[in-house]
């Protein structure tokens, strides 16, 4: 064909070409990092979700402690992944890559705040969440790699990652869904105190979100509807507990439950 061949040869040694080669490297490096972060984020999401499932398995005191310990271990593992994100972010502007790992962090906030609620019946603050995301570099692995190149970094080096207020809010908004599930579960398990505690707590969060209203970003406002529905479910559950409790004097309730438990024992014995 009638292609210009000489032109090419000239180009390949041109300064523009060499200049663009550095751009190629810069862009590829950035995209590769972004991709690694997306993968880490997916891992963080999945493990956080599994932690939440685990925490829903707490239904009574005996297995409670055990599950809390197990969830702590799981969250530690998640934090190890977050540490990897933090390492990738060392020296970077985290906002540049934020979209890549934000979904994972939100899910982590959901899991960690759920665990915190179960332990303390209160809301974990964004500061407390972030406190756990400061990592020291004393692990064997890192020491090994670090000691060869910059040995002086050996002990001072820490990595940290900050959950943004918006990530935190989005995680807490999703937490309310889990709290609603926990509430309905409690009613089903005959636990009549937890639902009232939960409705109190959820109302506080709901009031908080309505106070923020539309001053936050769109993603936060978008979750308000679901949040309102979760609150309605919890309020309805408490309403039902109250209404049915009205048919019997309050002091008898304990008896009712113990009787019921006996009965179930009997049933079990038969089968």
């Amino acid at each position: 064909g009638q292609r210009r061949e000489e032109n090419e040869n000239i180009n390949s040694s041109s300064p523009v070409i060499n200049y663009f080669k550095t751009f190629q490297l810069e862009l590829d490096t950035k995209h590769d990092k972004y991709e690694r972060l997306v993968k880490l984020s997916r891992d963080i999401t999945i493990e956080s979700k599994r932690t939440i499932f685990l925490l829903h398995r707490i239904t009574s005191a005996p297995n409670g402690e055990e599950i809390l310990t197990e969830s702590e271990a799981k969250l530690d593992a998640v934090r190890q992944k977050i540490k990897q994100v933090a390492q990738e972010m060392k020296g970077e502007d985290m906002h540049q890559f934020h979209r890549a790992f934000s979904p994972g962090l939100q899910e982590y906030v959901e899991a960690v705040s759920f665990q915190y609620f179960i332990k303390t019946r209160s809301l974990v603050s964004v500061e407390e969440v972030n406190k756990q995301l400061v990592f020291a570099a004393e692990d064997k692995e890192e020491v090994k790699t670090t000691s060869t190149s910059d040995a002086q970094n050996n002990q001072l080096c820490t990595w940290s990652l900050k959950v943004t207020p918006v990530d935190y809010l989005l995680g807490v908004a999703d937490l309310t869904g889990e709290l609603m599930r926990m509430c309905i579960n409690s009613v089903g398990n005959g636990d009549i105190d937890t639902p009232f505690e939960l409705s109190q707590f959820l109302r506080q969060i709901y009031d908080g979100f309505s106070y923020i209203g539309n001053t936050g970003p769109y993603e936060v406002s978008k979750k308000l509807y679901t949040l309102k529905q979760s609150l309605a479910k919890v309020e309805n559950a408490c309403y039902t507990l109250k209404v049915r409790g009205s048919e019997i004097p309050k002091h008898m309730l304990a008896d009712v439950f113990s009787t019921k438990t006996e009965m179930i024992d009997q049933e079990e014995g038969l089968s």
Partner: protein
Amino acid sequence: MAVSQMFITLQGVLTADQDIREEIRKVVQTLEQTAREILTVLQGVHQGSGFQDIPKKCQKARENFGSVKTQLASLKTKFPADQYYRFHEHWRFVLQRLVFLAAFVIYLESETLVTREAVTEILGIEAHRDKGFHLDIEDYLSGVLTLASELSRLAVNSVTAGDYTRPLRISTFINELDSGFRLLNLKNDSLRKRYDGLKYDVKKIEEVVYDLSIRGLNKEEAVAAGEK
């Protein structure tokens, strides 16, 4: 050059317009902030303990409406009076919200439906279009529908708080509202869609009343009330 001169003039007009919008936006933001504060105050009634001090909460909300009045008074100075509908979209949402809040206060105080006139008085604006900055009829209706849904929540929570007579009164009130809306021939717009939600509120409250009735809790209370 003629053309450029013309466009410079046009830009003057556009800039003036944008400045007006900017000013409006700022006032609307403060209005939204105040509205959110009133909401926070009034949402307290849903808490178990909140049922005792409804009057106090209403009082506090009324004080906040003082700021609303000032802010709305400021809003109407931001644009020529005959261009209400030119900038309507800017304050439409917050105005509906304020109607709801005023209607909620009035309901909590007197268990009646706030009239359009009353709500405009609370907000310090006009009831009729030709008098100045007024309350559009659809915005009024939209705020009232929000009240209906809030009351269905209140019916539920008042039972939880041990107040068994309030739901009956709410039920009567909502039924009246429903009949009222049925007199309207609404267009197929957002108001119509919101009105379709009213029937769920009606049903929800009927179920609360049912739950009380079947357990005789409505009568019990009625007796108790009679004794007082």
